[in-house]
């Protein structure tokens, strides 16, 4: 009961946030230089034609009217058209979203699977070799921009060593993508037992997800480390030692569970890094996702997709943070019962 109340309370906070997000995305494109009517009409039309087009597109209406039309469009699933592909933005998005999700989730998984144990071990073996190595890896991961590590990884593993495939999308040339269930190639090929596609999809995913995953692993490992250092000194961990609870269970059970609150908080921030990093990594590896799409659109000043990308990332952010709030409540009874 208490949890349901908590859930609803959190959910009610999502709506004003979403309204704010639409206002900001709309205002951004409204105040940005460049006239959409000119972009649509092309450079060779007369000013009268532009005026006519503005009227047609509603650009002569006041700000709030335009905003209202925009929101009503978004609510009806109308995100406008892409000037470069000539298709509705929503359609382009739907087609590219699984690629982005696959890359993001794989990177997040890598960051968590490597970052959490690294942080725990750094805390448990404080100021030893493990701790120092963890620190160096962490600083390197943060300090090197992903476009550079991506290119470096390609140079070494594709060009020099030849162990990585050429950066040409999500699946090797000539291999049929698995039957679409979730849209994630790795998951779909697992579900359909298509081992050939699975191997190729994992192979293609390897370098981009490692590039992105290692770049966000560091903040996770550092947060786990610092929280664990504090918690390992806490009274209840000392009491657990004194009660003869086995070492592994004290560290990975009692202590790590209590360290998860700040770690989950940082996940929200890490998610932001991932979305930003996505756009860059996707273009380095020619990954057919929405980040790549947004960057291409940015190059061609195609405002519809950009606006929608910003809206979409903001929406994801709100959803992720909502999930994080719910996780807090699941993990910590003190928050749930407040």
């Amino acid at each position: 009961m208490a949890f349901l109340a908590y859930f609803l309370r959190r959910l009610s906070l999502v709506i004003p946030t979403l309204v704010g997000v639409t206002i900001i995305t709309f205002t951004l494109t409204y105040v940005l230089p460049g006239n959409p009517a000119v972009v649509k009409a092309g450079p060779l039309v007369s000013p009268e034609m532009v005026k006519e087009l503005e009227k047609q597109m509603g650009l002569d209406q006041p700000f709030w009217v335009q905003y209202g039309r925009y929101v009503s469009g978004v609510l009806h699933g109308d995100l406008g058209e892409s000037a470069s592909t000539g298709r509705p933005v929503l359609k382009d998005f739907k087609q590219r979203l699984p690629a982005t999700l696959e890359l993001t989730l794989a990177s997040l998984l890598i960051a968590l699977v490597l970052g959490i144990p690294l942080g725990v071990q750094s805390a448990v073996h404080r100021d030893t070799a493990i701790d120092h190595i963890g620190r160096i890896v962490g600083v390197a991961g943060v300090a090197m921009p992903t476009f550079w590590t991506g290119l470096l990884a390609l140079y070494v593993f594709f060009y020099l060593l030849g162990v990585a495939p050429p950066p040409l999308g999500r699946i090797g040339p000539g291999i049929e993508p698995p039957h679409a269930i979730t849209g994630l190639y790795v998951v779909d090929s697992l579900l359909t037992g298509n081992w050939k596609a699975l191997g190729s999809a994992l192979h293609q995913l390897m370098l981009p997800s490692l590039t992105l995953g290692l770049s966000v692993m560091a903040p996770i490992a550092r947060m786990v480390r610092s929280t664990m250092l504090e918690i390992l000194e806490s009274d209840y961990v000392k009491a657990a030692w004194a009660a003869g609870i086995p070492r592994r269970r004290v560290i990975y059970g009692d202590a790590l569970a209590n360290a998860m609150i700040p770690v989950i908080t940082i996940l929200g921030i890490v998610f932001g890094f991932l979305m930003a990093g996505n756009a860059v990594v996707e273009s380095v590896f020619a990954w057919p996702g929405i980040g790549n799409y947004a960057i291409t659109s940015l190059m061609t000043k195609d405002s519809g997709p950009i606006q929608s990308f910003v809206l979409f990332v903001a929406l994801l952010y709100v959803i992720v943070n909502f999930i994080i709030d719910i996780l807090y409540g699941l993990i910590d009874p003190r928050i749930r019962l407040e």
Partner: protein
Amino acid sequence: MSAVIEVRDVSVRFATDFGEVEAVDGASFEVREGEILGLVGESGSGKSVTATAILRLIRRPGRLTGGSIVLGGRDLARLGEDELQKVRGTEITMVSQTPRTALNPLITVGEQVARLFVLHAGLSKADARKRAIEMLAMVGIPEPERRARQYAHQFSGGMCQRVMIAMALATSPRLLIADEPTTGLDVSTAARILDLLRDLGHRTGASILLITHDLGVVATTCHRVAVMHAGQMVEVAPVRALFAHPAHPYTRALVRSIPRIDCEVAMEPIPGAVPSLLNIAPGCRYAGRCPWVEERCRQIKPGMTEIAPDHLVACYAVEDGRARVV
């Protein structure tokens, strides 16, 4: 009465930025079958460190540098970590001075007691739960069924301490170490917690090492007392003897500093403060505050001498009869 645990010449050193500090310098005492031994001393006298050393939980930058801790024929000072883990929580348990924060905030109180039964007694989850509720009832927690499903933050300090005691006695230990168990509790709660400890210790047959700086607690709760000063054990005596005939100059001063309501004796504070343990002279660490100090006190630490049955004191002046015990 035979000893449950014998601590002999235990020393603990801590590395600090300014050099090594010997926080416990050759402490020796035993806790006997069914008794409550009080371990008293000022803050920083090494009481808690001694307790931590008994559990072999001294961690860097500290280390156990010598001595033996014999429990049931085994020397804990020489056991490996795997074997120690089996001793902790089964044969020796601990109640800490911070009941509110010593319970894991994310696990229900009942589960924290129950998992000890699963871990140490091999009970099934359901049986362990039942036993946990029985334990909570035994330590006087009302509505134990309902309270077992709650979390530490829903308990008062006194109730948390009752839970800690339930956890400490769950596995029928031979020795329970209670490290200032009433710190931070109000006076009446503290008294009830001490009553509970005494009563349950008696019923379960666990011997108790009660660490405190409160001589009033010692007088009402303990059978025997060990007095520590600056990491050294200065006197061990039955509780009556200690209050009636304190021998070591430090103990005398301690006893004289207790306010009394039954006669017109002025309280006397002890001159000086606990000495810094950095670069301290090898002898008696009370030398700087002692009225009977002589040169050898600073050079060689006096050994424990039995001045009356069961009454041990470490002091040259008492040994020589210069400081007559009244």
